[in-house]
């Protein structure tokens, strides 16, 4: 079971967008309980995530309590309740990757981006997630960045990936300075 989620405030014009996507999904799928997952998936595909408002509207259309839709969305890993970053970083935590440093890679991203797994940077530039085996265990540890698979990701490569997106990496000195005294 997954933890509760705090919804981020909507952007300007996002409400309109949500309504449109929900309507579209409801036109494609009959508003029945059986179609709830396909409807949610389609809305998520359009918006990149499932805002609370969308779930409320879908619940109303299916004549069911919103909390049930919310319960379902939090039950399945596939649904995300927070907006995706412009660049989505997914760190593989499958068995093979975990054993050869997947966690180290995840921690590096957390450190560099200043967010925890499952979060999005406040500027919505990066989001960070963990995923189960992406089927490339041969190249473990694996990180999927915007659908592009990166193999053998060491901490140095983490920096390389972020730099390639123009993310300024705090130099070691700054990072160390923040943590306390500098190196002697």
């Amino acid at each position, binding site marked *: 079971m997954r933890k509760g989620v705090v919804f981020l405030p909507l952007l300007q014009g996002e409400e309109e967008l949500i309504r449109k996507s929900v309507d579209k999904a409801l036109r494609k799928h009959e508003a029945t309980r059986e179609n709830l*997952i396909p409807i949610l998936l389609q809305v998520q595909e359009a918006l990149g995530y499932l805002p609370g408002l969308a779930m409320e509207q879908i619940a109303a259309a299916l004549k069911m309590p919103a909390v049930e839709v919310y319960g379902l969305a939090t039950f399945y890993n596939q649904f995300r309740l927070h907006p995706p970053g412009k660049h989505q970083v997914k760190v593989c935590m499958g*068995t093979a990757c975990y*054993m050869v*440093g997947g966690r180290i890679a995840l921690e590096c991203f957390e450190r560099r981006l200043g967010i925890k797994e499952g979060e999005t940077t406040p500027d919505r530039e990066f989001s960070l997630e963990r995923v189960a085996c992406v089927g490339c265990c041969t190249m473990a540890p694996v990180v999927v960045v915007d659908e592009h698979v990166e193999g053998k990701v060491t901490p140095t490569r983490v920096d390389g990936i972020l730099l390639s997106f123009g993310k300024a990496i705090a130099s070691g000195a700054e990072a160390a300075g923040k943590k306390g005294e500098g190196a002697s």
Partner: protein
Amino acid sequence: MRGNAAAVQERYLKLKAGADARVKALYSEPVIRVGTATCGIAAGALPVKEAFARAVEEKGLPAKVIEVGCMGHCYAEPLAIISRPGFPSLCYGYLDAELAARLVEDFLINDDPCYEFALVALEPNDVFPTFSDFPRGVYEQKIVLEHCGFIDPGDIDHYIARGGYGALAAALGKNPAEVLEAVKASHLRGRGGAGFPAGLKWEAAVKAGSGEKYVICNADEGDPGAFMDRGILESCPHQVIEGMLLCAYAVGAEKGYFYIRAEYPLAVERVRRALEQAREKGLLGKDILGSDFSCELEIFQGSGAFVCGEATALVRSMEGKMGIPATRPPRLAEAGYRGRPTVLNNVKTFAYVPPILNRGVEWFRSIGTEDNPGTAVFSLVGKVAHTGLVEVPMGTTLRQLIYDVGEGLANGKAFKAVQIGGPSGGCLPESALDIPIDFDSLQEAGAIMGSGGLVVLDEDDCMVAIARYFLEFTQQESCGKCTFCRLGTKHMLDILTRITEGRGEPQDLEILEELAEEVRAGSLCNLGATAPNPVLTTLRYFRDEYEAHIFEKRCPALMCKELIVYYIEPQRCSKLCNVCVGSCPVEAIYTREDGLKAIDQEKCVKCDNCLKTCPPDYNAVIKLSPPGLLAEKEGKRP
């Protein structure tokens, strides 16, 4: 018998003749087959494919570049097979764009097949070894993976030309009962984990009476370290479709579903395309091949919950509910999807059916062992040299699988354990390597066959950490219905976390064992009932590692972060090289007055980077456990 057997056969032969002609025409000129399953794409197969295509075009050659699935040799991706009339088909690995261009020029223009880059030839010949000349080829026997990596999954004719849908055409000329009888007689056991005989399951659905029935293919593949089902769907979707249609025919279903996890977009796309093509050819939908048997297949995308791989939870999630397992009986075969009789099988289970019907029950039963006929398909990963998708007869030993098929351990490390069956399975030590691979023997040893994930672990892997990893997984994926599964696993996880962090207590192991027993007994579905397996097997075979963590605060594999420190050996540090200093993400490494490098332990985040980047000539960075060893080392500093 449904409709006119002769007419059905005639229609099929016409399809076959058309497919044969197309494929023959294709291979009358050079063909380059590039492996573009997920594994290949990740390794860079798409740029390689483009490079081939570009080179072919630039040189104005009549060669065709096509996409195929996964051949199973994932360690050597990107892979391509080049077939040129007059030469044996040759498979090349570790490709990049440059090598691709060179192969086009050398092989296709200058008649030099560049044997130095070839891995293997597909057909017997006088010049280059074939699969059967390698140990792997000796042990491997492919039934489910037979066509994977050799045919274009996006072109139904490639499957038909290899005899695909022939079993369906022949079956439509027989009674459904004959198909059921053959599957029963084959003793085919379900490959989703439990090994339940497929024939009995199908028979139960037949006995459940007439009316609406469903066939569902379980492609949820939740084991976090396995990818066989995806590999099959991406590489040869038609074999699974044919198997499902045969099942539908045998049990009298007219509707079926592929339940594929949404994390597998490429598999979803390839199955969708395969279904469309089958429909166009009259192999799916109304009056298949002109018989009066109709069956429609659709895709349902699962949403990523491990428990939804469980049969009853899967069906509930298809009904739009939360995927929470239900008590059985009633079994799905009696009351499943929408309350109707439903046959649910794994991807591989269905994929066995066409070959069984084509080649006969006797043939199938001659492979493997008496109680476990056929083959076992594994995704072989971890610290093994040749990772990939492998298929060996049941009864092959783990040792043969790891050392002969997988070519032993990577990087010359020592073997420690093999993890089989994912979160429901266990870790087996060296002493268990000679047990044969089959449902029953593995269970006896404390692991399970599972759906086929096999991870090889070496001396650098901590057994407590891996037990904790799997328990964390099941704990998060527990649907929360059963108290023992929900709270018992949480309690176990807390204890394991404490142990890996050096806060274990002497009585912990006993408590773990008691909890494991309770969780096993008190859970409704197999998620909970098998969740303690990784812990129990590691406790059984690697108890000394737990004890080292608890009593000495030491991690023998040097993996648990809280129990290790990084240290730079002054005797080995070169002084002049600055690589570690530059690689440290938190500036914990500094240069001492005497030029040697040292680590500020306060700042070190144990990211392992300095150890990885220190040039092999020096290898000066080491890990110490327990952390107390550091004082000893530093005392001895020059």
